[in-house]
């Protein structure tokens, strides 16, 4: 069985960098061989949503849609990511949120 963990927190909650540092957890889970991969994401405000060919700013979190899957893509820029996302079959009836990875 594989599981996607969606790490959620309110962006307005202030925590110290140490408090939020996942390094020890990542080390532990990778040592046990349970973590296959993951990445921190940019804030929701940096998200772009593709829906029926329309590009809109922001996440789609407030709608009735539920997360049905995830893909990780690597593109030259947002325009290419939007092009790829808009070709996904779900883009024609649902919505695809394009959220950038936190820069290295």
């Amino acid at each position, binding site marked *: 069985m594989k599981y996607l963990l969606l790490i959620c927190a309110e962006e307005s909650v202030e925590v110290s960098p140490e408090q939020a540092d996942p390094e020890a957890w990542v080390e532990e889970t990778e040592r046990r061989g349970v973590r296959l991969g993951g990445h921190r994401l*940019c804030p929701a*405000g*940096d*998200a772009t949503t593709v829906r029926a060919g329309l590009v809109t700013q*922001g996440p789609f979190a407030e709608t009735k849609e539920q997360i049905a899957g995830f893909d990780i893509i690597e593109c030259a*820029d*947002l*325009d290419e990511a939007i092009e790829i996302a808009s070709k996904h079959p779900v883009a024609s009836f649902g919505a695809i949120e394009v959220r*950038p990875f936190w820069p290295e």
Partner: protein
Amino acid sequence: MSGADVTRVVEEAFREEWGRVVAMLIRLTGDWDLAEECAQDAFAQALARWPRDGVPRRPGAWLTTAARNRALDRFRRGTAEAARLRALASAPAGPGPEPRPESAEEDHVPDDRLRLMFTCCHPALPLEAQVALTLRTLAGLTTAEIAAAFMVPEATMAQRLVRAKRKIRNAGIPYRVPPAHLLAERTAGVLGVLYVLFTEGYSASGGPSPARPELTVEAIRLARVLAGLMPGEPEAQGLLALMLLQDSRRAARFDEAGDIVTLEFQDRAKWDHDEIEEGLRLLDDALARRRPGPYQVQAAIAACHATALDPDDTDWPQIAGLYGELARLAPSPVVELNRAVAVAMADGPLAGLRLVDELRAAGELAGHHLLAATRADLLRRLGRTADATQAYGEALALAPTDAERRYLARRLTETGGT
């Protein structure tokens, strides 16, 4: 040349060249904040040096070179601190190298500004951020000025600009004009941003001042850049024509007390006939391409007003027909309201009132003072004084600017209300 003259030349260069210089630096560095800082620095250098050395033959090239040298300098300092110290230690004392005027090959690549406009107007950015970024990076308005235009505190606007620039960086919004198949939807965004900018200047959305001519001037300048760079896009020409035809009435729209003078009572000799000529010429060119769009239709409506010799000469049936066309191309309750006004002029107040009451029943313009004001005016013309008085009262309570409130209060008194 006196110091004051040089200051004026630098101010003029700022209006003409700011967007070009910032755009070039964004292309060079990919860093929006650094680009703005270096552009600011170049203009500061111009203020310090031009009074002493004289104004260069090509100020734009001088500024571009100075800003680029500043950016290269900042890069060297940032990336190679140790090398910088060694170089400084061995360099002879004295002023740094002069910017090399006349050597900037970027100076005549106006596409940079178009790229910048399309980056600012990326659909992944909120519309307000699109307008604010365009004002900041292309027009060089200060954050305080943009905050005033949007009626928000300066700190709020600063935060919005920071967020927009962060998203451009984090999300990887590219600095380029999009490929052909995406051009149409983004051009619409760019045109929309420029028209928001223009209308905000033409009728301020609130506050003591009914108009902000510096914003309309800037919007016209940017629309001119866009129309020049996209000669095959009739809507870009249409938008420029629309702005020029509306702006031509600027001097006649308010009286000495700052009160609104409606179209009917404007002194047509005060209209700017050069702007009208240019607007009509642009509109003819655009319409000849036979690809009509909302800006061309709105420009055609403005042209009907601009070419009428006096109010009675206005071709209202034509205007009503054009509003019908506009409602088809870009449906909105505000367009329907304007169509109702035109129909009232063409076919009588009762025909107009029917359309207004349909709109009122639909409830889409509830809370909009122009709906109440239009209804009040039609009722007054139909002699239904009591109903008119009540509608003027409604409109007065909703009007956003002092000038509009004074106009409506005057009308209310005329219909016998208090």
